């Protein structure tokens, strides 16, 4: 197998010596072959479909194929093609290898989870193959790197991932960083709109199906250690930027005094800058300290009443506090009228960090802030981080804010604003919902729970894995996958199906229902009782409640209305969890 790949690599090197962008020889080949073979297979499937409809003859082996368009399809002839033909020794095969590896991993797992004691010969054979493939994975990795190095030296984009930045091997000889050429994948010097259309061309994108191994991503602890030890080479320049902005402090004071409000934008965290400004503001005002209320817009649990309450405690005398209404709308009105009737000597400074953060973005919050800002004895200093923040405000809100915008690019890291590990987990769809702490969080929660609770969770996880295994192969690729895959149909899916020794009989009917995941509530309960994790439904519910509270389990209703319990994790994470639980 690796040998074949090397061949492909050298082929590439030879064929695309003249400058070619993006589409080069070896990439054409799978497309070409598929184009040729595509038509007959389609025709056949139509023919196949018709008699079935009328005669109702159902052949268990030949399952009807989904009608969806597959963009890069190789003919699927389950019984004819054992492996890919020699002519198509391309990346498809490489991918097939990888998916085979995944499949074998699944097989292994299946064995361990289900404690399947059946000594089926076939299964054992599969097992052996699976182990072999798994073991070969390391060497393959090396080969892959070699292949990459080969291609990059000749400055050819990896056909594997034409649209993503080309990856380079770790082991390749280093060129000086400044001389490194960018991969010529996107055509150079396109105007922005052309580039947009180029990158959004219909006809689908070719993206590699590489996955980022979980162990590479750092958890909170490791991340903090690494970032703590990291030295920014631009510290001097960043300090210089801070000083540059600090020279405008006097101007800001003047602008705020004149009834304008300031909004700072630009890349980098502006927290420190603003805090320095506030320090100076306090230092200059001497004994008569201004009242400054700071709102951290990026905190995930920020609510309007909290802001209003804090403002109220700052401006309203203590004895009158209890008479204030509770509803935010009424409270705001009361505050504004209080400000009008007893105008404070100094302006109230309202500082909003990240006024465009998700929580602060809510329209209720913005309209309340704008009404506060429009009051003559309130001045607002806000920072905005996102690129599109001006869209937050419609004409009238914007007018109420009376903004003056200043570019305050600092290049400072968003240490307080972002929980990096959480964000990345959320971005890559790992570790479920926000605020749960991912897999590590679950581990932590489980540690503090009873043995029975751990038992129940183990049941849920293993059942979910088992259910996922019995559902479609396309689906187990991604536990979270949704139906709208049309555009990005995976390249290797059909051929992988082709390589399947036993096509799953469940596959045909469940294109819709396969969205079902997790365990049915009843089943889970019965399993739990069988395993003595709980004795009655009340206990079962109590245990579940704990999981719900930590968002380790979600309950969903399927099409028929039966409740299903789902552990919101990706497959491999479930697997590691299960390993630890067993």
């Amino acid at each position, binding site marked *: 197998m690796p040998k074949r790949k090397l061949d492909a690599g050298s082929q590439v090197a030879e064929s695309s010596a003249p400058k070619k962008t993006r589409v080069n020889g070896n990439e054409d080949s799978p497309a070409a072959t598929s184009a040729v073979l595509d038509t007959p297979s389609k025709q056949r499937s139509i023919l196949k479909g018709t008699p079935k409809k009328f005669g109702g003859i159902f052949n268990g082996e030949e399952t009807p194929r989904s009608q969806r368009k597959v963009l890069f399809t190789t003919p699927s002839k389950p019984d004819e093609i054992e492996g890919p033909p020699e002519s198509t020794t391309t990346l498809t095969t490489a991918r097939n290898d990888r998916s085979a590896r995944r499949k074998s991993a699944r097989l292994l797992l299946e064995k361990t989870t289900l404690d399947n004691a059946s000594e089926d010969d076939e299964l054992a054979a599969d097992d052996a193959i699976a182990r072999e493939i798994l073991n070969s994975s390391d060497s393959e990795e090396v080969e892959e790197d070699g292949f990459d190095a080969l291609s990059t030296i000749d400055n050819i984009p990896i056909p594997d991932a034409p649209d993503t930045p080309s990856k380079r091997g770790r082991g390749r000889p280093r060129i000086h*960083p400044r001389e490194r050429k960018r991969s010529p994948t996107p055509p150079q010097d396109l105007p922005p709109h052309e580039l947009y259309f180029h990158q959004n061309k219909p006809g689908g994108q070719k993206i590699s199906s590489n996955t980022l191994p979980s162990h590479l991503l750092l958890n909170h602890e490791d991340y903090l250690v690494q970032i703590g030890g990291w030295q920014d080479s631009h510290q001097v320049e960043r300090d210089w930027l801070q000083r540059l902005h600090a020279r405008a402090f006097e101007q800001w004071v003047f602008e705020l005094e004149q009834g304008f409000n300031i909004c700072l934008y630009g890349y980098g965290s502006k927290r420190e800058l603003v805090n320095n400004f506030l320090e100076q503001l306090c230092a200059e005002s001497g004994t008569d300290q201004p009242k400054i209320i700071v709102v951290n817009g990026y905190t995930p649990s920020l609510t309007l009443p909290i802001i209003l309450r804090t403002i109220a405690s700052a401006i309203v005398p203590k004895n009158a506090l209890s008479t204030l209404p509770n509803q935010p709308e*009424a409270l705001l009105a009361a505050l504004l009228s209080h400000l009008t009737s007893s105008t404070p000597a100094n302006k109230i400074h309202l500082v909003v960090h990240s006024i465009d953060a998700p929580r602060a973005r809510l329209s209720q919050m913005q309209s309340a802030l704008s009404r506060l800002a429009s009051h003559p004895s309130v001045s607002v200093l806000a920072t905005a981080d996102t690129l599109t923040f001006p869209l937050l405000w419609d004409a009238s809100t914007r007018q109420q804010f009376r903004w003056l915008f200043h570019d305050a690019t600092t290049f400072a890291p968003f240490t307080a604003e972002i929980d990096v590990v959480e964000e990345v987990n959320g971005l890559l769809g790992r570790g479920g919902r926000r605020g749960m702490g991912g897999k590590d969080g679950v581990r932590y929660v489980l540690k503090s729970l009873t043995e029975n609770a751990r038992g129940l969770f183990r049941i849920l996880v293993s059942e979910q894995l088992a259910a996922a295994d019995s559902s479609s192969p396309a689906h187990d690729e991604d536990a979270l996958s949704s139906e709208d895959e049309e555009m990005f149909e995976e390249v290797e899916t059909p051929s992988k199906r082709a390589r399947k020794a036993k096509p799953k009989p469940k596959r045909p009917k469940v294109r819709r229902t396969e969205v079902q995941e997790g365990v049915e509530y009843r089943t889970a309960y019965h399993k739990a009782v069988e395993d003595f994790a709980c004795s009655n439904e009340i206990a079962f519910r109590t245990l579940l409640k704990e999981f719900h509270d930590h968002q380790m389990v979600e309950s969903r209703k399927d099409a028929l209305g039966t409740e299903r319990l789902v552990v919101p994790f990706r497959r491999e994470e479930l697997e590691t969890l299960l390993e630890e639980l067993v």
Partner: protein
Amino acid sequence: MEYEKVYMFQPANDRPAKRRRIEPQGLQTSWKQRRLAFDRDWSIPQRAIDARLHSINASTVDKVWTYLNLALKPDQPSTIRTGIILTGADGATEAGISKKIAEKFRVGKHRRILVPLSSSSGSNIKVLLKTLIQKAISPKFESSDNDLDDDDGELRTTRTKGHKLLNYDLQLLYDHVREHKKEQVIVALEDTEAFDSDLLSEFIELLGCWQDRIPFTCLLNVATSIESLQQRLSKAAIRVLDGKVFDVAPSSDEVEQVCEALFNSGTPLWIGSSLMSTALERQHDYIQSIDSFVKAVKYACMSAFYANALSVHLNISIEHEVIAADHFEALRQLDSFRTYSRRLLDNNEVKLLTTYLESDEALRALVSGRIAEGRQKLGVMIHVLKVIRLLQQKLPNTQVTPLSSLYVQALSGKLNGSPLLRSLLLTIRKVPSNIAASVLRALQLYHLDNRDLLVDMQPVLFRLDSLIDAQRETSTKPLRSEDDIHNSTLRTTVVAQKVELSKQKSALSEQDRKYTELLVSLSDCLGEFFEETLVDPADLVFHEIFVYDLKSPYREVFTPRPRHACERALATPHDYLDCDCCSSQQDGGNAEATLAATQPATAVLYQLYLESGSLINASDLWHAFQAVLGDGKEDAETMALFQRALAEMRYLGMMKSTRKRMDHVAKVMWHGL
């Protein structure tokens, strides 16, 4: 503190280094003085503008107010009295009328409730009603309930007696109205167009149903037209309404008014033509309320005083000793002073020049004098602009140019000798005496109002006047000018098979001839007058001090390009950081940004991101990132940077997670769009 949600800021007292007060240096030392000058000087135009803004729609407000008073005694109890206020296109940004009415509410003592509702108050009938009831019942909200019967001041949405009602039941409002003996509940819809038409119809119909119990009156702000409002409402809703239309001054009118107020106020600082035209253009192109224009003018004034150290000289009362010496040094560097010195040299006034160069006191005197002179000249210029407008008004077939655009032209020094003026003068030569008489009267009146402005013209005016008076006694026909083409006929004669065109002056009387002469001298006179008064501000000595004409802070502060700024920071971090390591210039002048390991991690990731399509494979991205940055570093360290960069990109709104494929992220923003 960074993990608190909201907190009161306390300065860190334990860090004295931070609290070190930075003493201003150089020209910035005069900031305090300039600040005072600004406070004094801006207050004049500010007051003038405020007064004008207040009076702009005063009559409309009064009309609406009377209408509301009338509606107190309904003659048809089944319909809702409705004031429809046609606000024009900027109605949404400006709750002007209803705000003014609300102000009126606050002063008087009466038993009415004003409830302003906007489209954001509720998207369905229940929420809308709930908001209406809450706002109406809430004691502190806008209702000028000065005689508080209920001193508990508590929001009462629940009934004390009877069964509990849902919070959108108008019965609650009815109870409140009955209890407090309210005479009128005014529902002001601020942006009628933004409401869903079904919702609006339903709402009005419902109010109509309760009209017999709750005395509703509506105020609708309509930005489009009555017809479109009528189309949007259901028949039943229209039947309920009994409307009256009120017009509001259009926003362009408001701008003119504010401009006039500003120019008349004797502002010490004049805004230059390019800044003014930018502000006017923005006002015209985007629907902005008049407030934003006033804000722009104010900000221009602020930046002039803040950033131009020489504006300290605008305050004439300051003694020259108080002003630091470098401010005089700066004065001597001004371009206009240099040209002035050149002129002095050419006139052999070397001695005078030396005193200016050596003595601060003498220079100070010169500056004060010249600034006063320059201001006076600009003040006269405004009068001239008004004279031009006056002439345009009186002359037939001439469009009246807005004052603001005349101002822009005049301050750019291009009005003098412009086609506009030339055609104006030509038209004057042609007018018959009846129109000339009205022009004369207008000029005379203007002269009386503003003494010694048109003093040179007096003899001509006087002679013309007497001539016209004499003519009026003898005949009813007006005097005609020779130059008027109506008085000449074209003749075609065929001479030797050629057509000859000849202009034949029709017979003109002796008086006509005299009249023409006088008209010519009048137009000459006016021409000279314009020539003399329409100075180019750039020719005035020290114009840098009292004419402010910089576009840049205005543009950056009011119309920022945040997306561009962020993208630039990430795509070419060198532009901001100005570091040696990331500069792309040094290798062969290739201005385009290149990836370099020295660049900030997010910048590197962003540039990789730019190259990718709409879905990005995280693993590939990681490998590419590692290839750029991972040189000689541990994987874990690079990964930490990678994760941080990813998280930042997501936070900035450039990436989002996708469920389409595993381990992929979706690209959200394209560079430069």
